[in-house]
């Protein structure tokens, strides 16, 4: 790696370029596309690190992992991952992922998108995929705003925050995402912030191992738009807020974990339960109905 600059000389290790190690994330990324488009201090890249570590520890065959994103800043995650990756339309990564998963149940399908994409334009799909217990892991990077379009009000913008389309302060109430996921039937629901990198990485690992509809909310700063407009400082300042105002409450009732403007953040693993997936339900039902005539769908990997 000739382009790695070694700053380790201070510790008397002299490394020739060929001895410099590659960043352990790089094999999981499309190297030729880095640097990415995200702003300085944007937390999306940090969530990607956590995802990569979760992926690394999951032991999954990466050729069988697909990642699907919608549109927006977080929508660009798929394009940076060295996996089968799909950058779909605004709000629709979940139904695309549903088609991908049901057409080849052997795939591990991850949906990675933003709060606006998944809960405003894509809200309906989220509800139904969770209700069906579709075997998908959904990672929502919540930065409280629409970053790509310039910081407009999102369903996650806390009341009182100022955003470009709520120039006098947001007077809408925001969604409590874990509560929605829980109510709709997700089998795993967790929230962490990008300050909690180890916990977030562990949640990613657990999510990848879990069968059924998994929801992980990763709170991340948007320093360029949300933080700046609300005079909250840079990315580091937001991470410090995450650190100071977070309370870890595993198993907390999701109805109590709503967010307020710069208020307390309840983080933790809120839900971890078992429920038959949509596909297992279908297979079981059809086996009961048709008996021996029915061949379990997805039981044998589709070869066509």
């Amino acid at each position, binding site marked *: 790696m000739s382009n790695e600059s070694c700053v380790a000389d201070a510790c008397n290790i002299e490394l020739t370029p060929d001895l410099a190690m590659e960043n352990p994330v790089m094999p999981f990324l499309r190297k030729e596309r880095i640097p990415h488009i995200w702003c300085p201090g944007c937390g999306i890249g940090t969530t990607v690190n956590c995802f990569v570590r979760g992926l690394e520890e999951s032991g999954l065959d990466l050729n069988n992992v697909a990642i*699907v994103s919608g549109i927006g800043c977080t929508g660009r995650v798929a394009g940076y991952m060295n996996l089968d990756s799909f950058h*779909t339309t605004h709000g629709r990564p979940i139904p695309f992922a549903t088609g991908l998963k049901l057409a080849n149940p052997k795939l591990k399908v991850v949906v990675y998108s933003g709060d606006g994409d998944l809960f405003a334009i894509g809200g309906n799909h989220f509800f*139904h995929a969770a209700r069906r217990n579709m075997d998908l892991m959904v990672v929502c990077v919540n930065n409280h705003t629409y970053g790509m379009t310039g910081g407009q009000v999102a369903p996650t913008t806390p009341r009182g925050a100022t955003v470009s389309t709520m120039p006098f302060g947001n007077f809408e109430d925001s969604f409590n995402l874990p509560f929605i996921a829980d109510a709709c039937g997700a089998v795993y629901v967790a929230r962490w912030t990008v300050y909690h990198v180890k916990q977030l990485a562990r949640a990613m690992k657990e999510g990848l191992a879990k069968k059924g509809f998994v929801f992980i909310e990763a709170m991340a700063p948007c320093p360029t738009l949300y933080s700046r407009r609300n005079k909250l400082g840079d990315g580091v300042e937001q991470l410090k807020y995450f650190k100071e105002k977070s309370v870890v409450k595993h198993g907390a009732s999701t109805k109590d974990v709503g967010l307020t403007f710069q208020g307390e953040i309840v983080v933790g693993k809120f839900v971890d339960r078992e429920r038959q997936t949509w596909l297992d339900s279908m297979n079981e039902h059809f086996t009961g109905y048709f008996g021996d005539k029915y061949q379990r769908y997805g039981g044998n990997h589709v070869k*066509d």
Partner: protein
Amino acid sequence: MDGDHAACEGALAAGCRFVAGYPITPSTEVVERFAQRIPLIGGMFIQMEDEIASSIAILGAAWAGKKVMTVTSGPGLSLMMEHIGYAAITETPCVFVDVQRGGPSTGLPTLPAQADMMQVRWGSHGDYEIIALSPNSPQECFDLMIKAFNLAEEYRVPVFFMMDEVVGHMTERVVIPEASAIEVMERRWTSKPPGEYKPYAADDDMVPEMVKAGDGYRIHITGLTHDERGYPAMNPPTQKRMMERLLGKIRNNREKLIDVRGEHLEDAEIVVVSFGITSRVSGPAIEEARKQGLKVGHLRMVIAWPFPASVIQQLALRVKAFVVPELNMGQMVLEVERAVAGKTRVISVPHPGGTVHEPQEILTKILEAAR
């Protein structure tokens, strides 16, 4: 068997094993039959939460290797528009069945129209090309459906199957041939290994070879303007290269894609141009006119898009007039006029929908053309 059911059988015969749909009159029977049939065939049907979801779930399934279809009618088609553009730019083989009903908006849910012809061609934003077929009988719903799937695989574009309420609900005898007698086009899988393969690199025929998720190619597919690797590249030269190929792969094959049925065209002085159910209503009007001694021919478009302009242009040099009946207020007649380019008369026979034309209405226009 009715047209809706025959369309479903055609899809199955073509190898379609993934359907996502949402109920909408008068198309629902297609997916109901698919839901009935698929468990023991080995495939997947899912009723999604809306047409937006249905139209992209099938695209996900196509990238996992399936032949896919969704089925809808006007209001649902309107909701699917964004994904027609997505299918076009990502070159995802797929079939959209539109059992047309009267519109606009909720319009006439249980009654026929042919008023979505322009929408399927132009409804999604940006420039793109599609293929649209117009069956006029349950038998054709079967036969042409296979063709629709084959064309989707051959050109990697969204293919529209433009039925209407009457064709969908019409019951006629349908002959289903032995599977061995049905020609089915398989996906154009690449033989290149990972590393050498580029998802959007194409040869002279402009249609790239395909892979599917899970094969180790680690593809990236995006609705953004992209280069041969599939990576976003939002600059004018890439846009130009991509658009030339997206449009060229259909435009360069326009002649090959012509599928018209002609009758009495040899000596025709007046030609009725029709498609779908209107072609059947035109028949008696043409026969009556011929009985009255008028030299009337019939040109029926089986493939309506790409429009068979060259056929019309040829005829325009020697006929007195074209008569264009359609179950809308004048859509495909605009294409006929464009092709004719003022060389001869073009007479529209519009109909607001809700029922088919009375043959007399078409006859009246033929007589007007003859004057």
